[in-house]
């Protein structure tokens, strides 16, 4: 059951499932009112999918899913500006998580914490260029910690889900 891309039906189903999950999670996240105390803080639920892909399928698949979900989410719910912010945050956090996983010795939760911080750094860098101002750097101090906190929540969840997926032996 190999198609031209070398994906078998099971793998294809897994990718499709993960992208669907990412879309549902971003939809769900859009329903949560923005945290008034810290504007810009988000739980980053879709990062859960990237994290699971990284650990179940490896770096390439994680980057691929990350790119697809950023494009799809921007097309469906976002605007042009949002796309650049998501891309900057998503790419930087994806790369940091891949490198940390490659380095070895870190748990999923710790990798996710670093990814959460990297995501917010990426978004602030994007904002500095898009808004042509360094004033926003002030904001990094706050987003640094909110990124770490949401990364921890996502990382713990991701670790549990990866374990369940492995136990179920549905994939791999």
């Amino acid at each position, binding site marked *: 059951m190999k198609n031209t891309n070398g994906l078998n039906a099971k793998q294809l189903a897994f990718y499709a499932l993960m992208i669907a999950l990412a879309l549902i999670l971003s939809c769900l996240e859009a329903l949560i009112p*923005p945290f*008034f105390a810290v*504007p*810009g803080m988000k739980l980053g639920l879709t990062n859960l999918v990237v994290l699971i892909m990284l650990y179940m399928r490896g770096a390439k698949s994680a980057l691929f899913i990350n790119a697809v979900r950023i494009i799809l989410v921007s097309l469906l719910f976002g605007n042009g*500006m949002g796309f650049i912010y998501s891309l900057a945050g998503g790419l930087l956090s994806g790369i940091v998580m891949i490198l*940390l996983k490659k380095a070895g*010795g*870190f*748990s999923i*939760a*710790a990798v996710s*914490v*670093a990814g959460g*911080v990297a995501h917010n750094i990426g978004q602030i860098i994007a*904002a500095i260029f*898009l*808004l*042509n*101002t*360094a*004033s*926003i*750097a*002030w*904001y*990094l*101090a706050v987003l*640094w*910690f909110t990124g*770490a906190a949401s990364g921890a929540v996502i990382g713990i969840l991701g670790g549990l889900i990866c374990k369940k997926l492995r136990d179920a032996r549905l994939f791999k």
Partner: protein
Amino acid sequence: MKKHGRDILLIAAILLIGGAIALILLLSRRQGAFVQVRVDGKAVALYPLGENAEHEIKGVNGGVNRLVIRNGEAWVESASCPDGLCVGMGHIRHIGASVICLPNKVVIAIVGEGADGGVDAVTGQ
């Protein structure tokens, strides 16, 4: 415990760097002199922080933010953008602090003496 050694090291490093950034920003803050308004990267207005006033700021795509300056503090009272995050960003008074409205591309920042002082001097804008 050994199993989580690298995890603890990584998280401690992240928290330490974050704390250092917060500390540097906190220690280096000074009361500002002016409120600088930038739309789409261009400085469009400069208001003294010491004078109570209210201004309508016209952002891109017809968006509007209502800026209030009172008692040495500046904040956005209301805005046309859907999320209203700029209103939630609260009151600012120290150099480098800012209120930002992404949809309208409006940046309201506190600057020091001299029109282009403060943090923006770093970027050479």
